């Protein structure tokens, strides 16, 4: 009976369009983070939020650079805590791409903020559990995704609304992940207009709702932005002092997401100040024609084929304008 029930549950989600994929767990993030401790500290590391996670395609980058970067971006989470963690780790000496999602980076919001402490405190049991899950469960089971957990599924049914409590929908499944956290947008967002509209309406809650109490006046908002930039300044200074090349990247947004970012976190008060104060270079999608004209089905992330285009264009800009000297030096060095 248990086997039948599980088969039916798996069949239901597969019919919904889900395919087995790896879980974006703290354990899998920690596994990638440990690569820096295990001799890969000279590699390129990607940090940021879901945009760097979904939009930067590791196979494309690998094809162009000859080396697969380490993917440490985490959805819904400012890259500042990871930036600080890498700054404090002398084993990391490589190149660093820091994704900037304005509403996360400059607010300090960290939905998965526990990931860095988890990495530092991960127990042997958790490491084994993560390995077992990756080898015995995740590649074979479609329903093993937090979006399809029992309580999550029940919670999003049409319950009566309680007066005075705003109805908030949680972010739904947006991506599919592979073994080394190589991630791309879930095809349902491209093929299912209803699901795409749902994803947009979930973002819209964020645009229409009141600001959080610590950012509900212009002065408070500015203070929060200044705090996050100052944290980045300190971390970048540490990284650059030991020769790490840091590059900020602002991936594209569109539609109402872009309008919201421009309104609440205008570039002149955030991105431009970040680059000026850290002294690190940055690539803003608005400054490069080749990073524009891409399709973002739910305003925030690129569809998979455009993410591949974006990655190729981004890598070429980086190689041409920023890490070129280093690349030449590497090419000239004896092998």
């Amino acid at each position, binding site marked *: 009976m248990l086997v039948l*029930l*599980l088969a039916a*549950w798996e069949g239901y989600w597969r019919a919904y369009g889900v395919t087995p994929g790896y879980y974006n767990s703290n354990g899998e993030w920690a596994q990638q983070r440990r690569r820096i401790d295990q001799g890969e500290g000279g590699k390129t590391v990607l940090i940021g939020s879901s945009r760097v996670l979904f939009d930067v395609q590791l196979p494309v980058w690998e094809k162009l650079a000859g080396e697969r970067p380490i993917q440490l971006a985490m959805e819904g989470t400012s890259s500042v805590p990871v930036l600080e963690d890498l700054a404090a780790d002398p084993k990391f000496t490589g190149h660093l791409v820091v994704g900037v999602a304005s509403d996360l980076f400059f607010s300090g919001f960290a939905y998965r903020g526990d990931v860095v402490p988890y990495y530092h405190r991960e127990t*042997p*049991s958790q490491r084994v559990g993560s390995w077992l899950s990756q080898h015995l469960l995740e590649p074979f089971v479609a329903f093993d995704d937090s979006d399809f957990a*029992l*309580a999550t599924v*029940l919670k999003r049914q049409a*319950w009566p609304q*309680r007066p005075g409590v705003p109805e908030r929908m949680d972010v739904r499944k947006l991506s599919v992940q592979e073994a080394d956290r190589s991630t791309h947008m879930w095809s349902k967002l491209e093929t299912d207009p209803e699901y795409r509209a749902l994803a947009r309406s979930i973002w819209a809650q964020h645009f229409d709702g009141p600001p959080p109490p610590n950012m509900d006046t212009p002065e408070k908002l500015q203070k929060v932005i200044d705090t996050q930039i100052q944290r980045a300044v300190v971390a970048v200074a540490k990284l650059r002092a030991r020769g790490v090349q840091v590059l900020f990247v602002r991936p594209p947004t569109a539609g109402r997401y872009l309008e919201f970012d421009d309104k609440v976190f205008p570039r002149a008060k955030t991105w431009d100040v970040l680059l000026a104060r850290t002294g690190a270079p940055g690539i803003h999608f608005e400054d490069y024609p080749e990073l524009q004209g891409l399709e973002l089905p739910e305003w925030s992330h690129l569809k998979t084929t455009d993410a591949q285009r974006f990655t190729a264009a981004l890598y070429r800009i980086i190689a041409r304008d920023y890490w070129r000297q280093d690349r030449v030096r590497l090419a000239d060095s004896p092998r």
Partner: protein
Amino acid sequence: MVFNSLTFIAFFACVLALHSLPLPWTTRKINLLIASYVFYMAWNPPFVILLWISTVVDWYAAQGLVKAQRQRARHAWMLLSVVANLGMLGYFKYGQFLLDNFSALMASLGVVYQPPHADIVLPVGISFYTFATLSYTLDVYLRRAKPARNFLDYALFVTFFPHLVAGPIMRPTELVPQFAQPRRASADQLRFGLALMTLGLFNKVVLADSFLANVAEKIYDVDKIPGALDAWTATLAFSGQIFCDFAGYSTTAIGAAMCLGFAMPDNFRFPYAAVGFSDFWRRWHITLSSWLRDYLYIPLGGNRHGERRTYAALMATMLLGGLWHGANWTFVVWGGLHGLYLAAERVLRTRFRGYRPGPAAFVALGLLTYLLVNLTWVFFRAKTFGKAWSVLGGMLGQHAAAKPILAMFSLISVAAIVAGIVATHWLMRERTLESVVTRTPAVALSVVWALMAFAIVIAQGEGSAFIYFQF
């Protein structure tokens, strides 16, 4: 490792397989001992040294107690055990708490003293295994039990993984004799053990973690002021969560031991159907309350030295029992409230000696007990007194203007689950799980078992730690 993890499933499968091999009994016990150390080291390997210290000190202390001729020497061996065990517990669990309180005391006297932050990591399960090993030397000292005949049996009693980190707190007299003869679970024991493990994990993964924990967090871990409905819902959710979490652990532990052929005592007997607080403590965390009774309340005088001394012993026991749960004054208040309840009940029982409640009054008294227990959970769950007063204020209707916080789904799910738990406890009040299982048709049992296992899998628990691990 936690029971609700893939690592434990793989570990337990290996242990079961090894235990069922046709090996000599001593070899199988060594396997269990090694497995138990692996189980413990899976959290933080260096802390196994503390476990070894506790084991070795108490083994030699008990040997010394047996050989000692003079009372003074016996006393010294007993003190060695108490100081070593409580010293470790005190340092790791209460070190920072004592420093902070000393600093606050100095400040109140006008002396500025800032102790360095020690950043002490609490070894998982230290409160449980120190109590288990202490009971060994204290029983030998009080001549209630003879020391174990060999070190292997004794070390396995201390370390046996099902009870190691969160109980049930075993006495040597309950477990050591079971190691004397070869044990292997019968088919029925294996089935019942696995069913108990499923039930325990259902309580933990599905009810506590998936539906109740986040409701309590939304009120207790945020800065919002809750109204009456939110404060009550969160507190009721926590009452369900703490039961499902801890009883879930105990049930899984008992089931795991049973699969290996060992018996462990009940730790919970449907406590939310308790009528009165002495009844509650005969049903809630039974092995701790009996430990506190035998090694604290009775040595403090119990009820043998008049009323005043009895109440003093009662309060001291419950206050220390509260502090055992955590290094925070909120736990002391939790224990103090239970002490007051027990004292008040004792006064009422003395005054109304012949009173026998009718059925309606009986249920009303039971619900009153549950209500008062919920008030104590506020102090158990709140991290600060400020938060505790805020939630209590909400529960007492003092925040009429508070904005609603919890969504309808939270209200409905908590109401359904908590009502289900309380109703089940009342239905099972005079019964045991074993008696109900025996009378239920196999088909019905199989269906319930499969549904629970299905719910555990699709709940996708994240292997969160059991609440009592922090104690």
